[in-house]
């Protein structure tokens, strides 16, 4: 059984335990879920490391490899957030998201192929890693924002809990934004090295700029206009739609220079 399959099984189990713990209000079951999630993260890390070793290059070059990495990133951010802020409602959905990413990744072409000439660069690691840290944090921020929206919509009254979700979502976006900026700008620097221009309105470039602008807008609405709660949560969720499209939709639907499948 491959490390990827073990991670899939563990993320699935973690997801079930989180939901069970949440529904029956048993903190003990939630703790078991966290432990299982940690196991999933370890085996996910092993999967990334083994592939790195086997391919002899960073495993960040096609959809399969990216999804394995992003699943790791989401699960890790979720576990850190849970331990630090003691909000366990996030874990169930983060485990589910990691599970979906890995599950989809494992049905794609898993063959190890030599790197395209344009990808052979040290910029690959910094550009892609910055993005994946950002995407992991944004995924968890979006889960918090979405839970906020659903709870506010159903007139859930625990103000304190809602506020902590709102604050958490904001802090994660604040954390992700510098990484998003590093990812976007190192992309421009690398494009200048590889293609002789720092910006060319390639679909991936355009979508990632739009995504960056939306989160910049989020931060400004929050700090300059005092938006809070449902208003910013809606922007956060909308922003993540753009993240998903930038990450996957562009490759699958639009082509261009970044269409590594």
């Amino acid at each position, binding site marked *: 059984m491959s490390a990827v399959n073990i991670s899939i099984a563990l993320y699935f189990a973690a997801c079930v335990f989180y939901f069970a713990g949440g529904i029956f209000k048993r903190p003990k079951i939630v703790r078991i879920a966290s432990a299982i999630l940690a196991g999933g993260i370890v085996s996910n890390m092993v999967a990334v490391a083994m592939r790195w070793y086997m391919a002899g290059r960073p495993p960040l070059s096609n959809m399969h490899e990216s999804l394995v990495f992003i699943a790791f990133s989401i699960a890790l951010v979720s576990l850190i957030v849970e331990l630090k802020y003691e909000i366990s409602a996030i874990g169930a959905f983060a485990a589910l998201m990691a599970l979906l990413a890995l599950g989809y990744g494992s049905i794609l072409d898993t063959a190890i192929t030599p790197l395209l000439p344009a990808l052979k660069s040290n910029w690959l690691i910094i550009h892609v890693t910055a993005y994946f840290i950002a995407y992991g944090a944004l995924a968890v921020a979006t889960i918090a924002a979405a839970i906020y929206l659903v709870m506010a919509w159903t007139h859930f009254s625990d103000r304190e809990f809602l506020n902590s979700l709102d604050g958490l979502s904001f802090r994660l976006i604040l954390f992700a934004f510098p990484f998003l900026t590093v990812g976007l700008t190192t992309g421009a620097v690398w494009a200048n090295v590889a293609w002789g221009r720092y910006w060319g309105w390639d679909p991936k470039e355009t979508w990632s700029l739009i995504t960056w602008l939306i989160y910049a807008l989020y931060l400004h*609405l929050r700090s300059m206009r005092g938006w809070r709660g449902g208003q910013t949560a809606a922007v956060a969720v909308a922003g993540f739609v753009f993240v998903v499209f930038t990450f996957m939709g562009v490759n699958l639907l639009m082509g261009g220079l970044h269409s590594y499948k």
Partner: protein
Amino acid sequence: MRKMIRKTVRRLWETLASVEMAAVLFVLIIAAALAGVFTSYDVYHASWFAGLLAAFGINLFACTAQRISAGKVRIGSLLSHLGILVILAGVIVSAMLSERGQISISEGETLNAYSTGRRVNRMPFGIRLDDFNLEWKNQTPHEIEIVVRDARVRQSLDVDVGGIYDIASSGYSIEVMRFVPDLFVDSGMNVVSRSDNPGNPALLVRISRGDKVEARWLFARYPDFTMERDGNIGLAYKFGKSPGDFKSTVTIFDEGKGRLTGTIEVNHPLKYRGYSFYQANYDPASLQWTGLEVVRDPGVHVVFAGILLLNLGVVIMLYRRSVKS
């Protein structure tokens, strides 16, 4: 009268510097960028889009200036906003001063001009191609994928014309008889090649198993056709090598002297006196020439300085926030 002008100017300035203005511009730019993605209209090079970006720059400048004069600005925020302004300035420099074009250069040849597509620009020095080197991922341009149903074999082979290949544990052997780059059947029903270009690459193979021998044409353009024809063995032909690494070794001649010898490959441009040479293309047939992209863009340095400021700014912002909380 003067009072009124002053009042109007102030009001205009306040509008320009407002967050509302920024939010509106954010939304407009996002909408325009989306329109560019989903329609065939070239939004990004339209003058109104440049105007939108300019308005964004002015708003950002006004905003930042106002906050500095109000003494409300923090260092991280200031650096990141200055960074964006510097990037926008660099983009303007690029748009006004950058030149780019292509050269196709053969081994041993020295060129001192490049084509932008519309005109030929001279360079203040010459560039000579000493050597072009290409490493292929596969050994030959002919790859056959073989499926044998009864032996449950699926295999890929790099083949050469004249070679005979045994298919592992299936009893089949395949002899590659002939290669035709641009197959065409003439009025006398003879197989001819229309040209030397790979318009319709085809391979004639002889498949034998025991005493059964069969000749078959494989077409790279119609791989499924040959896969379906036979019940037991299917062959799909892929023509063309995929390039691994390709590099051009060049020497720059300035004022009659060889000044610099270097190797250009993907991700490794060569720079000299403000010109950058990128590996862009090559002659796939004879490997006699290389295609280089020539770029002279003084805006790049400005943009990169802005990128540095922006990154520094956002990192400081994050750090200050995390220290505070």
